[in-house]
């Protein structure tokens, strides 16, 4: 008997028992939609992480200060403020670059120049001013919606120029501000009761996605000035933390350890602080490791849901063949061979599972889209996961449909015809 006839037959029998069919499919729907949902979110997240770290991430190390633990391995109760003597110095960085000349390509350094208020005319907004080197500002990958990054002369001279967020611009100039028109405007910053005048050269767009709020470092109040300007402002050249731009071919995690060992020598006798180096590559590994374990956990849950769904399908098929015993007997009397009866019921189970699978894929994609939009990322739907889902639905149908179908096929036609 033709497979198309069987599919038509299966659809007709499902149509006759819509509610039952839907309940039967539920396990399959839940299993498949959770697989598709988590895979879509995972793929989207990986894509996001890769694209946001792609420029700098895989080839940078972050170096900073850590509080020293006491002999019991606890952090001190009173956090000491780092003093100038605790910070990294330009000499240390020079020495470091001389030690690893092949690997260290540059430093992205930022300096906290203080927090306070920014005002234009009568309006104010809270501000945290960060001084950054060229490498820092370039690898920070802000999206500029007006103006541009500081020019090299501005950096070298330590000019009084500033880059603010679009949110800060709106607070200063109103919601309907033309961002391009404010480029070149003078603003006044009051930091620690001292006043500085800056010229706006750029406006960046604040990433307000939940993803950025969870994993990002951006604050809406962040404004950037050249590193030299910040150094002049704070009257110090010492460095609290910095990023090292390293050769992309070097193993970041290994070189991170070497870097930490290098700087720890300077802090051997420091009672309060130690050096630490943090590799984005290692962080990436831990993020993807975390994603993998989440995926594995969901896969196990989905597997259980699919198993339960499959057993549900088997159960309903057993009920179905019992209800249709006379039909089976009649078909046999009309000359249906056992193989044709078996095929009919296997196809019915497969059709139930595939329809469940399709509903699951659609729900999963919707879930993935919601997840991706929460993270403000592009929703990446992999064809692989869809094909895998539909394939496994079909497999479940064949596997769990075979036993009831075979039972139907082996019925004695006389008994079946006599069944009430």
């Amino acid at each position: 008997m033709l497979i198309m006839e069987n599919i038509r037959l299966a659809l007709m029998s499902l149509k006759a028992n819509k509610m039952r069919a839907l309940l039967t499919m539920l396990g399959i729907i839940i299993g498949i939609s959770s697989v598709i949902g988590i895979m879509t979110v995972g793929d989207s997240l990986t894509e996001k992480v890769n694209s946001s770290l792609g420029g700098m991430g895989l080839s940078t190390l972050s170096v900073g200060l850590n509080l020293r633990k006491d002999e019991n391995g606890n952090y001190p109760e009173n956090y000491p403020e780092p003093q100038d003597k605790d910070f990294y110095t330009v000499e240390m960085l020079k020495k470091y670059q001389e030690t690893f000349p092949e690997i260290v390509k540059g430093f992205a350094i930022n300096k906290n120049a203080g927090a306070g208020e920014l005002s234009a005319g009568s309006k104010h907004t809270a501000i945290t001013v960060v001084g950054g080197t060229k490498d820092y500002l370039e690898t920070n990958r802000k999206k500029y919606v007006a103006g541009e990054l500081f020019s090299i002369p501005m950096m070298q001279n330590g000019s009084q120029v500033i880059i603010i967020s679009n949110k800060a611009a709106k607070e200063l100039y109103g919601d309907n501000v033309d961002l391009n028109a404010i480029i070149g405007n003078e603003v006044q910053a009051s930091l620690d009761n001292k006043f500085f005048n800056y010229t706006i050269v750029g406006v960046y767009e604040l990433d307000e996605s939940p993803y950025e709020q969870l994993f990002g470092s951006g604050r809406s109040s962040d404004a950037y000035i050249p590193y030299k300007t910040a150094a002049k402002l704070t009257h110090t050249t010492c460095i609290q933390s910095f990023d090292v731009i390293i050769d992309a071919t070097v193993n970041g995690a290994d070189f991170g350890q070497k870097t930490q060992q290098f700087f720890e020598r300077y802090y051997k006798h420091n009672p309060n602080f130690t050096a630490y180096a943090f590799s984005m590559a290692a962080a990436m590994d831990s993020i993807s490791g975390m994603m993998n374990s989440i995926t594995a956990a969901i896969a196990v849950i989905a597997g259980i849901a699919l198993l339960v769904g499959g057993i549900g399908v088997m159960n309903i098929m057993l009920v179905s063949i019992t209800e249709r015993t006379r039909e089976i007997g009649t078909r046999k009397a009309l000359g249906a061979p056992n193989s044709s009866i078996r095929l009919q019921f296997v196809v019915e189970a497969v059709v139930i599972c595939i329809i469940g699978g399709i509903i699951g894929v659609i729900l999963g994609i919707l879930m993935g889209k919601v997840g991706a939009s929460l993270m403000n990322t592009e929703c990446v739907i992999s064809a692989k996961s869809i094909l895998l889902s539909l394939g496994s639905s079909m497999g479940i149908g064949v596997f769990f449909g075979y036993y009831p179908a075979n039972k139907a096929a082996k019925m004695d036609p006389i008994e079946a015809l006599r069944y009430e």
Partner: protein
Amino acid sequence: MEERKKIIELSGIVKKFFIGSPNELTVLKGIDLTVYEGEFVAIVGASGSGKSTLMNIIGSLDRPTEGGYVLDGVKVTDCRDSELSRIRNAKIGFVFQTYNLIAKTNALMNVELPLLYAGVSGKKRSERAAELLTLVGMEDRMKHLPEELSGGQKQRVAIARAMANDPAIVLADEPTGALDSATGRLVMDIFHRLHDEQHKTIVLITHSPELAEECERVITLKDGEITGDRPGRGKAC
């Protein structure tokens, strides 16, 4: 009488149930029966006489414990299960007391079913099914589901289905048993028409002596043995 083709040849058919157990039961005790092409035969007998068992054997749904059965030149008793399916499909048209139409499936598709199992292609199937439904006067209700049809209409669809593959015999088991006498008459008339116009070989199993009398030949079964084989009034019809 000229030499007629033998359609059913039963020789020494014995059917036992629960073989080897203390309550072994011999339902058919050596049946010898020959039915010729174009005959309209009634098999009558009280319940428990072995009618149904004999029908199952003639219909190739069951195998005898002993004896030989040749149907339209094929030795059924030598066939494997898969071959029995093919014999049922090609050579036998079943008509049941309870119609046994496939629910949720319209009249046309019910009639198409034996054609489907015979591997007939879609278009030919529906043409043939429509032709058969017209023959039994059901051309107006081809798209109706069994639940939308009366008992008599259902049985007419069932007869059309039995005729689908132009079988060697039509095997009707109490076809009017569930119908009132007027509708039963209508159904019987269809069998007579199939017999008279298409010269179908028809085996009718019934416990009603009046219906049996309408046939050409009446075979009486009692306690698993043939106790009577005589012409009926049907010869004159």
